[in-house]
């Protein structure tokens, strides 16, 4: 299992079922940690690029808000919290042409995740309107309280039943180290047995480790702090986002065509 990395990410059947049991089985933890998924030179590269080298407006558009932000061909976005120092980079695979390493690592993680979920890898890497597509996200959190409120995703309590998907897992690629690059709670995850774990400290996570965790278990980040000479909590996430039409509205003609197609399928 230790050989799984961003260069070698196809799981054997034995490994696959061991991981699935640890994540999904009620007696399992709800997560699986791939130690050293990414080598040090890559984590250093990513931190240097995203945290120290890039001036976001040169390559990224200011994030317009989640609704209708993601459409086929949409640009890379960034969000910058001036008071907290928070930086979020939304890097669609089709638009992030300036930082190829992030794309390559993201692709390996999306593939690894698809094996665990038992779903086709190509299903969510190409944007189709009305479906979900993974938009890799790089986040730098520096200072703040209640960074991520406790919540679940895709669980049985989803208001829209079509969003319930108990197979979904999320992946966090850690790029900096707690108590060295930042302080605070770090990532707090609720295990399948209901107990909470402060992942970085309790699992000894170091930069380059990949944590794959059950999306519908509660997760949160209470507080993070760092000084000016620290890089902060740097990580990559891989959320499947809903893809809309550019501008968010479908034309009347499209709606009529859709309706006619439905009628045809039902009666002919």
């Amino acid at each position: 299992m230790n050989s799984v990395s961003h260069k070698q990410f196809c799981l054997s059947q034995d490994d696959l079922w061991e991981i699935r049991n640890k994540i999904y089985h009620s007696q399992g933890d709800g997560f699986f940690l791939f130690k050293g998924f990414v080598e040090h030179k890559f984590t250093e590269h990513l931190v240097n690029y995203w945290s120290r080298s890039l001036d976001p407006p040169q390559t990224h558009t200011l994030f317009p808000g989640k609704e209708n932000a993601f459409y086929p061909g949409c640009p890379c976005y960034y969000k910058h919290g001036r008071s907290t120092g928070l930086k979020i980079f939304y890097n669609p695979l089709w638009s992030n042409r300036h930082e190829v390493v992030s794309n390559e690592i993201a692709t390996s993680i999306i593939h690894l995740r698809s094996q665990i979920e038992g779903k086709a890898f190509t299903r969510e890497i190409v944007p189709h309107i009305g479906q979900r597509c993974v938009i890799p996200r790089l986040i730098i959190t520096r200072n703040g309280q209640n960074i991520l409120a406790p919540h679940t995703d895709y669980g049985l309590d989803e208001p829209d039943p079509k969003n319930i998907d108990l197979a979904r897992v999320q992946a966090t690629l850690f790029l900096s180290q707690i108590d060295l690059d930042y302080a605070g709670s770090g990532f707090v995850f609720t295990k399948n047995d209901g107990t909470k774990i402060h992942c970085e400290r309790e699992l000894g996570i170091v930069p380059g480790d990949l944590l794959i965790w059950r999306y519908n278990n509660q997760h949160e980040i209470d507080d993070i702090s760092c000084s000016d000479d620290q890089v902060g909590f740097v990580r990559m996430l891989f959320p499947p986002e809903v893809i809309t039409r550019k501008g968010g509205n479908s034309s009347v003609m499209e709606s009529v065509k859709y309706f006619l197609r439905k009628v045809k399928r039902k009666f002919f």
Partner: protein
Amino acid sequence: MERDKLFKLIDLHLEEKAGVPSNRELMWESLGDWQMDSLKKLGLLPDHKLLDVGCGPLRFGTYAISYLTEGNYFGVEVWEPYMKLGQRILEEFKITKQYTMRIDRDFDYEVFDEKFEFAIAQSVVTHLSVHQIDKLLKTLKKVMKSGGVFLFTYINNRFPYSVYYEMEEPMITPCNLDNSFFEELEKKYQVKFEKYPKGLERHPTGQAVASLTF
């Protein structure tokens, strides 16, 4: 379904290496209820013999085996891990009646040496190519009693899709399953096609529903 029961089913799927959490478990009761209700409305009685094509891990089996006279349920499935999982699910549901289940990829139902009053294929025709549908009908023609009913669900796609079931099994969905397609089948196999048989509830997933009477 109660939360504990749902998660127990998920655990069993994992222990038998049969699948990750999916709609199978989430729709367990809504699909099972619909199948049982539909077949009863079409005339299924306890002493009838039933063939469950694509029986999965005996989801509908838990309903049908309980309802039918001992030994009258026959299931076929392509996904091998469902065989053992089916046994464990029946144990979990405390169902001890006899049944028959076999792994089959070739539509070889004559091996049962039985004649069936009813057959059902829930979300199976949705994953069969047009060629396989023809093969299925050819076999059913041999094993269904005269007057026997085959109830199935399908989707009329405009073109064939491929499905990669559990990232293990490649499958092809059929297309152009329109009225003329079924008229051809009626002629070829001397069966009577009925779309949305009278009195049946809508299918929980919105799939089209039809029956063929032999």
